[in-house]
Each structure stands twice: as structure tokens, then as C-alpha cells.
């Protein structure tokens, strides 16, 4: 089974490159005698997890809620709006240019406003994550729903197929690869959105923790927070990839 061996080799190399990075990091800090507040060693970084004051579990849960909540909201509303656009062309012509304009607003710039309107906490940060990843989903879904072969429509029309049949049998399954390409981009943006939200105003979460330990120059804890945020993002991305693998045939996937 050369295919199996090749897969194994690929995984092994992927793990290796990560280990090499950690090793390089370790030796850079130890041999270079880098001060701890500039860059902590990998060991010191993990050690930061033992400080009970940092309430890691709670902060992880808060940030995860913001990321996953904002993301799921964006997926549901984004796909919903794209569906409405494909059913009502006039609505699309009316609202799509507006959405494009609104998308040009740097979402981060809305942060102070969101705080004025909704105060700070999980809710507003969730909205920031939503705002930043909503548009790519609308755009790719709308595009996917438009991409239908005209000849295929003719084929269904000769059979007097209904619009609903065209939608369920051709349009929607055909749009799935596009929807997932938007969802993958959005997964990365959602993480950034939630963290920026926490930076701007919050009293909990990993982003908030980073601001707290910045004052005391506990760089190790900041490193740990960054690693944990990255891991949350990887879990979300992994879930989306897994879902794509279940729903979209290999050949149709957009890489």
C-alpha cells in the first residue's frame, strides 16, 4: 500500500515541522539568553497554565463562545440572505451593492460604536466576529447559486421540472463547494473578529487576559493565550473541513 505509506509520511513530516519550530524556539531562547519578558521558553509558556489567577478554562470558554457563536450566526444568516437573493433577483440588485459598500467599512472601526450601543462582553464580541465573517459567506454562496449550467436548466425545463426541483437537485448541491470555500475563509476571520472585540472592550476571554498580563509583562502567559486562540481556530477550521469532506464530493471541492 504505497498510498498508505505516503499518507503516513506526509503526516510525519507535518508533525516534524511543528516540532522543529518548537525546538528552534527553545534553542533560540536558551542559547541566546533571551530575557523571559521578551520571549519565554516553550517550557515557561506551558508553565503559565499553572497560574490559577488566569482562569484559563473560563477564558477559553468565553473566547470559544464568541468565535463559534459569531461564526454560526454568520453562516446561518449569510447563507439565508444569499438564498433570498437567488430567489428574488430584484432584492439582490437592491441589496447586494449596499452589502458590498458596507463591507468596505473596516469592521474593526465599528468596535467603539458597538461598545457604545451594546456595552461590552460576550454579546458584542460575538457580533464583531459575526460582522467580520458574514460577508465572505454571502458572497461565495450567492456566486455558487448563480453558477448553474444553462444547458442543465434546459434539460430540467424539457421535463417541466419545477423551480424547487432545480433548486434542491441542481442549484443548492452545486453551490455547496462555494459555500464551503466561503466558510473556510470566514472561520479564520471569525477568530480575528472575536479577539479584536476583546481587545477593544471586555472583562473576560483570552484577548482580555492578554491585555491584563501585558501590564505585568508576563510574556509567557501572552504566548500561551496566542497558542490557545490558534488552537480554537484550528478546531473550528477542522470541523468545517470535516463537514466539507462529508458533504462535498472530492472532485467538486474548491481548494
Amino acid at each position, binding site marked *: 500500500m504505497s498510498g498508505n505509506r505516503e499518507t503516513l509520511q506526509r503526516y510525519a513530516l507535518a508533525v516534524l515541522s511543528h516540532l522543529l519550530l518548537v525546538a528552534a524556539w527553545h534553542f533560540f531562547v536558551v542559547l541566546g539568553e533571551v530575557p523571559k519578558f521578551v520571549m519565554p521558553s516553550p517550557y515557561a509558556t506551558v508553565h503559565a497554565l499553572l497560574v490559577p489567577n488566569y482562569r484559563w478554562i473560563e477564558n477559553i470558554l468565553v473566547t470559544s463562545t464568541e468565535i463559534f457563536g459569531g461564526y454560526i450566526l454568520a453562516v446561518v444568516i449569510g447563507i439565508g440572505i444569499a438564498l433570498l437573493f437567488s430567489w428574488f433577483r430584484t432584492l439582490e440588485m437592491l441589496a447586494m451593492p449596499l452589502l458590498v459598500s458596507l463591507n468596505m467599512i473596516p469592521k474593526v472601526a465599528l468596535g467603539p460604536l458597538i461598545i457604545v450601543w451594546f456595552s461590552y462582553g460576550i454579546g458584542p464580541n460575538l457580533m464583531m466576529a459575526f460582522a467580520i465573517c458574514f460577508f465572505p459567506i454571502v458572497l461565495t454562496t450567492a456566486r455558487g447559486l448563480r453558477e448553474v449550467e444553462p*444547458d442543465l436548466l*434546459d*434539460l*430540467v425545463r*424539457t*421535463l417541466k421540472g419545477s423551480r424547487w426541483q432545480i433548486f434542491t437537485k441542481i442549484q443548492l448541491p*452545486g453551490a455547496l463547494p462555494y459555500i464551503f470555500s466561503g466558510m473556510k475563509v470566514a472561520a479564520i476571520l471569525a477568530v480575528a473578529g472575536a479577539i479584536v472585540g476583546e481587545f477593544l472592550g471586555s472583562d473576560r476571554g483570552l484577548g482580555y487576559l492578554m491585555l491584563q498580563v501585558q501590564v505585568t509583562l508576563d510574556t509567557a502567559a501572552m504566548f500561551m493565550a496566542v497558542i490557545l486562540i490558534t488552537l480554537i481556530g484550528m478546531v473550528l477550521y477542522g470541523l468545517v473541513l470535516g463537514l466539507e469532506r462529508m458533504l462535498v464530493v*472530492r472532485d467538486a471541492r474548491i481548494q
Partner: protein
Amino acid sequence: MSEPFIHLAGVKKVYRTRGVEFLAVSEVTFDVEAGELAALVGPSGCGKTTLLKILAGLHTHESGEVRIGSSRQPFDPSRDIGMVFQQPLLLKWRRVIDNVLLPAEILGLPMTASRNRAHDLLGLVGLKGSEDKYPYELSGGMQQRAAIARALIHDPKLILMDEPFGALDALTREKMNLELLRIWHEARKTIVFVTHGITEAVFLGTRVVVLTAGPARMADNFRVDLPHPRTLDLKTSEKFGEYSRRIYRLLGME
């Protein structure tokens, strides 16, 4: 004379874009008997695809008469048309068998019976064993075979083919021509086949309708009196050459 299955008389179609009229089809008059394989041949812009779409009920025509079906062979436009295009247009996310079943699903035909029929048809088009494959696992020729099976699943009386082998390489195309003749012979359908290949038209057709471009009009309509089943050595015969030259002349290529 018996009543023809397809009757076209003086069919004309004009497209209008921004007030400019464009003649797509004119003076088209021909009959096709039930069970014939009629080849529509002509250059790009001669209106052959438009004509096919008029037959499919996808386009309206300006004037003239279009009648499909006879008292012996009544025609139901919603379930008696099977279509094959230049591209196979299989749904990437469906296995071959489920692609073949698409028209049956749309028409709401009983699924168990249709599934059995789909298996039989895949055997007929030479795709036995590929039922559970995805389209990307098939070559272009095999995909087009699946598309032909799909066009036959609801047992339509008329199959409309729009340059179905135009995207295939020359060798596969020759092979598919022979396959089509075999399938046509076994399935006993009336086929209208659009092509710009002159020899393909003569080789496949029991009847050839020649269309010219600029102006778009019908130039000729004749029966091809060549024996069945047709074999490749027929292409070098005197009679085959005569038919081909006749079309070349009409298209101003001689």
C-alpha cells in the same frame, strides 16, 4: 404515405437584440418518420441548435408549423424528450446511477422500477460496473455514455442530441458513432442529431438536413440510402462519398 412523427413546414425564427433583427432559422421544412435518426448538419450560426431547441419546446418560433407525434405515436412534450448536449453535464456530486436517475426523479416516476431500468441502460451504453462511480472517475467518452443513458431513463419517444461527440477526441468520436448506432438500433427511438461533422451526419443519419448560415436557411433534406447496420468501411464506399460531396457542395466548400 404514413403520418410522420415530426413535421416541420416553413419554420422561421428571428432573434431581436436591441432592435436589431437576426434571422436564426428560416425555410425549414422536413419530416422525420418514427424511428429515424435525422442528422442536422451545417456550420456555426446556421441555426441548428436553435432548431433543436424549438423541437424541445424551449424556444418559440416566428412562423411555420412544428408538429411532433402522430395518431399512432402520441407525443407528450413533458416526458417524451430526452436531451444530450455537447458537454455531458453530469452532476459532480452524484454517482453515475443517480445521475441517470435525475429525469426519473423530476418526473416523479416510481424509483425501484427506474433504478432497475437505469442498471439496464448503463449496460446498454457499455457502463456496466461503473454505476457507483463519480463522474470525475470516468473519461469524457464514458461520461457522454452516461448522459445518453440519462436521456433514455424516462423512455422518451424523441432523443435530441446537440453535437454530443463534439468535445471528444477523433478516435473516441468514431467509436461513439458506432455505439450510438447500436444504442439507437436497440432502444428504437427517434433521434434528431445536430452536428457540424459532414461525414458524421452521413454515417449516422437515415436522413440528413443541411442548413446554411448567412442567410440561415435550409439548403437540402434527403434520405441516406445506406445499409444497416453501418460499419466503418462504409465510409470509403462510393455512395458515402457522393452523399458527403453533396453536403460539401451545398456548404460552398467545393
